[in-house]
C-alpha cells in the first residue's frame, strides 16, 4: 500500500513540476528579455548560495565524521601513509576552496546584465605560466615525499623478519606459520586436496612442523614478512588498521612486510571498545562470498604470543597423521624416491 502511495505522490510531484515549467515558459515568452535577465540573476544568486552551503556543509560533515576517518594506524608504515594523506589533504584542500570560491563568486558576480558585453580577454601567457609552474612545484613535492615512503614500504624485509603465509580461496583465508624449525615447508598446488588445503609437501621434512591456525597472531613490534598467494581466483589481503593491501593471485606470489605496533589489548583501550578486534578482509571481488571473507587478527605481547604458540599443534599432527592421507603421502614419497633413482640411473 505504501508503495502505491509513494508512486502516486511522486507522479503528482512530477505533474506539478511539468505544469509549472510549461506555464513559466509561456510567461517567459511574453516577458521576453526581462525574463531572461531575471533567470540569469536568480541562477547567479543560487550559485552563490550553493557555494556557501557546500563549503559549510563540507566543514560540518568532515568534523562530524572525523572520528571514523583513517582508523588508528597499528603499524609502523601506517603512520607514514597517514602523514602523507594529511599533507595531500591540506594542499588539495587549499586549491579546492580557492577554486570553488572563485567559481561560485564569478558565477554570481558576472550573471548577465542588460547592455553589458563580456570582457575580451583571450590570452595571458604570464598567467598561464604561473598556473603551470605552481601546480608543478606542489606535485613535485608530493611525488618526492610519496616515493620516499613508497620505497621504504616496499623495500626488502630484513633477514630476521618472521614469515607468515596467507593463501586466499573462495571464500576464506588459510594461514601457515613456520614451526619450531623456523622454515616454511615447500608446497605445491598439485598436492592440494580437501584436507591438505595449501598443498604442503610432507615428503619435505620442513613442512611437518608447519602450523595452520584458524586466526592470525602477530607479536607486537616484530617485523613480519607476509607471503601471499591464492588457490583459485584473485583475492586481496586487506588489513585495514595495518594499512596493508596486497593482491593474492594463483600462480603469482606476492608479499608485504610490516611491523605491528599496537596490541589488541592496547587498541581496545584506544578505541574505548572492549570488544575491539583486528580483522582481515578480502579487498578484491572474488565471487558470491566476497563480503564475508573474514579472518580475525590478534596482536599479542611477547608473553601472550609465546603462550599462544604453545597451544598450537602442527598441521601434520592435527589433520594428517594417522589418516588415509598419511598413507598417500608415504606412497608418494616412495614414488618420488623411485623416480629420482631412475633419473639418476639414466644420467649415469
Amino acid at each position, binding site marked *: 500500500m505504501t508503495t502505491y502511495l509513494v508512486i502516486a505522490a511522486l507522479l503528482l510531484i512530477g505533474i506539478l513540476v*511539468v505544469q509549472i515549467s510549461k506555464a513559466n515558459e509561456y510567461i517567459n515568452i511574453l516577458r521576453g528579455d526581462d525574463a531572461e535577465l531575471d533567470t*540569469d540573476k536568480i541562477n547567479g544568486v543560487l550559485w552563490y548560495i550553493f557555494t556557501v552551503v557546500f563549503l559549510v556543509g563540507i566543514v560540518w560533515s568532515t568534523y562530524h565524521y572525523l572520528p571514523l576517518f583513517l582508523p588508528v594506524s597499528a603499524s609502523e608504515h601506517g603512520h607514514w601513509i597517514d602523514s602523507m594523506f594529511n599533507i595531500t589533504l591540506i594542499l588539495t584542500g587549499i586549491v579546492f576552496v580557492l577554486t570553488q570560491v572563485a*567559481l561560485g563568486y564569478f558565477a554570481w558576480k558576472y550573471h548577465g546584465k542588460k547592455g553589458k558585453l563580456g570582457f575580451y580577454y583571450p*590570452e595571458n601567457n604570464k598567467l598561464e605560466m604561473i598556473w603551470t609552474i605552481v601546480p608543478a612545484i606542489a606535485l613535485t613535492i*608530493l611525488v618526492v615525499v610519496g616515493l620516499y615512503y613508497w620505497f621504504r614500504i616496499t623495500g626488502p624485509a630484513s633477514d630476521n623478519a618472521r614469515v607468515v603465509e596467507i593463501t586466499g580461496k573462495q571464500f576464506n583465508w588459510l594461514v601457515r606459520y613456520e614451526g619450531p624449525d623456523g622454515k616454511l615447508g615447500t608446497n605445491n598446488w598439485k598436492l592440494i586436496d580437501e584436507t591438505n588445503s595449501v598443498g604442503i609437501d610432507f615428503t619435505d621434512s620442513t613442512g611437518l612442523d608447519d602450523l595452520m591456525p584458524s586466526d592470525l597472531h602477530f607479536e607486537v613490534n616484530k617485523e613480519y614478512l607476509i607471503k601471499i598467494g591464492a588457490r583459485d*581466483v584473485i583475492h586481496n589481503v586487506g588489513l585495514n588498521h595495518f*594499512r596493508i593491501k596486497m593482491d593474492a593471485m594463483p600462480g603469482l606470489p606476492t608479499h608485504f612486510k610490516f611491523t605491528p605496533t599496537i596490541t589488541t589489548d592496547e587498541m581496545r583501550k584506544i578505541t574505548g571498545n572492549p570488544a575491539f578486534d583486528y580483522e582481515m578482509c578480502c579487498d578484491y571481488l572474488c565471487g*558470491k562470498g566476497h*563480503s564475508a571473507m573474514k579472518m580475525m587478527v590478534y596482536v599479542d605481547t611477547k608473553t601472550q604470543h609465546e603462550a599462544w604458540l604453545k597451544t598450537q599443534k602442527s598441521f601434520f599432527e592435527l589433520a594428517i597423521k594417522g589418516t588415509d592421507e598419511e598413507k598417500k603421502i608415504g606412497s608418494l614419497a616412495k614414488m618420488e624416491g623411485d623416480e629420482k633413482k631412475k633419473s639418476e640411473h639414466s644420467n649415469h
Partner: protein
Amino acid sequence: MSEKDIHHEHHEHPKGATITDHVHYQDTEGVIRFEEDHGHHDSDRNKKNFIHTYIFSTDHKMIGKQFLITGIFWAIIGGGLSNIFRMQLGFPDVPLHFIGAIFGDKWAPNGVMTPDFYNMLITMHGTILVFFVLTAGLSGTFANLLIPLQIGARDMASPVLNMLSYWFFFLAGLVMFISFFVPSGAAGVSWVFYPPLSAIREASVGSETGADLWLVSMSFFIVSSLLGGLNYITTILNLRAKGMSMAKLPLTIWALLITAILGLLSFPVLLGAAILLMFDRSMGTSFYLDKIYMSGIGAMPHEGGNPILYQHLFWFLGHPEVYIVILPAFGIVSEVLAVNSRKPIFGYRAMILSMLAIAALAFFVWAHHMFVTGLNPFVGSVFVFLTLLIAIPSAIKVFNWITTMWRANIRYTPAMMFSVGFVSLFISGGLTGIFLGNSAIDIQLHDTYFIVAHFHIVMGVAAFFGMFAGVYHWFPKMFGRFMNRTMGFIHFWITFVGSYCIFWPMHYQGMAGVPRRYYSHGAFESFNKFGALSEFITIAAIVVFLAQLLFVFNYLYSMYRGKKMTELNPWKANTIEWTTPINPGHGNWDGPIPTVHRGPYDYGKDGEDFIPQTVPMRPGETTHHG
C-alpha cells in the same frame, strides 16, 4: 601539401579523391550529390522512405540522434540498476519483489537479492555506463552531430561506415540486453573482468554464459567504436570548409579528434585481451591462468599463464578510456562556457595543448590501477610520477575555464548551468586523484569507496554533465525546437546537489577503509558503522535518478511540443553549425558551404557581442587563431 591545397584538390577532383565514397561526393561548388541522384540534394529528403531516413540512415545528424536515444535508453537501465543495488546497501531489509518478477525468483528469494545478483548489477552498471552511455552515447552523439556541422562538411567522410558504426553498437547492446535473461544471468565479475574469476566458468554464477555474451558484446562494441573513430579522424583532417584551418577549429572538434585518436590506439588492445580471454574460457588455453585449484573441481589443467597480463592489457585501454569519456565533455563545456559567458575561451592554444598532453600521458599511466598487485616498486614509482604529471594540464584547464568566467556577461541556459557544474565537479573529483595517484596513499584507499567517489565525480557525473550541456545546447540544431528551460534548471539543481550528496560521503567511507563491491558490510566491525550514511546516499541516488526521468520527459516532450526555433542562431554563437537551415537536410547547407575567416571565439571583441566565423577579418585586425 598545405591544408589549402588539399581542400582545393578535393573540390576540383571530387571523384578522384579517395576520401569520398560511393554514396555521395561534393561537386565543385561544394554541393552534395548522390550517384543515383545527380540533381540538387534539396529533394532527396522527400524521396527517401522511412527506413532510409530513420533506421538505415547515412545522414550524420540522424546517426547522432540514434546514438543519443540509444544512449538515453541504456542510461536509464544502467542508472536504474544502481538504484537497485543501492537499496541493498542502504536498506537491505526492504524486500524488492519486482526483482523476482523481472529476472526470476532465484535471484531474489522473498524479495531479498542474492550476492550473485548484486555482483551482476554492479558489473552491468559499470559496463553499460562506461561503454554504452559515456563512450557511445557521448562521443557517438556529438562526434556525429557536430563534426560535419562545425567543420563545414556535407557529411562524414564515409557515411556507410558511420551507419555501420551505429549498427554494431546496436548489436553490442542487443547481446548485452539478452544476457540479462539467460538462465545464469548476465556477467557478474565486475566491469574490469579480471581473470581467473572471469575465465573459469565454475568460479561464480556470473562467470557462466553471461560472461561469454559480455565478451561477444564488447567485441561488437569495439568494432563500432573503431569504425566511428576512423571516420571522425578522416573527416576532421580532410573535409574542413575553406578557411577552416586546424587553428580555427572549435574546441569541441579538437576534443572529439583527440578522443577518436585515443580510441583508435587503445580499443584494439582490449579486443586482443577479450579474444585471449575467450580462448582461455572455451579452448583450454592458459594466457591468464596458472596453478589453479577450484574447490569442488580440483586442480585445473591450465599452467604457465599470468593473471596480471590481462590487467596490463585491460588498463592499457582502460585508462585512456576515462579520457575518451571526459575529453568530449571538455570540448562541449569549453564551447558552451565561451558562448554563454559572451567571452572568448581563455587560452585557446593552452586548451588544445593541455588536451594533447593529457591524451599523450593517458597511454603511460595505466599501471596506477595496479599498485597493489605486487608490481615492481620501481615500475610503480615511474607510474606515480607520470600519473601526477596529468594533474598539471588538468589544472591548466580548470584555471582557464574559471578565467573564462571572469568579467563575463553570463547568460544562464540549462547548458551553461551544467557547464559550470562540470567545472565544480571536475575540481572536486580531480583533486582526489592526487591522493590515489600516489602509490603509498593508494595502499590505504585502493578498492575502497574513496575510489568509487573519485571516478564517479570526475568522469561519471562530470561526463554526464558535459553530455547534458551538449544536449540542451544543440537540441535546437537536432530538432528545430527548444527544450523547456524551467524543467532544465530544476533538472540541473537536483542533479548537481544530489550528485554531491551521493558521492561526497563516499570519501568518508573510503577513508575508513570500507571496501567497494561488497554485498553487505555487516560482517566487519570496521566497516559497519556507516548505516545512516548509506541510507542517505541511497535516498539521494533515487532522487537523482527520478530527476533524470524529468530530463527524459523534457527531451521527448520538446521533440514534438517544445518552443519552435524561429531564428537561425538562437545562442548568438560564432560557430558555423548555426548557419545551416533550421531543419537542415542531408548535406546540411542548401547553398554552398560557407567560408571560414576567423576563430570560433570572437565574443566581446572590439565592442561587438559576437563575430561569427564566416565574417571576414577587418583590415589590421589581430587574432589568436594562427
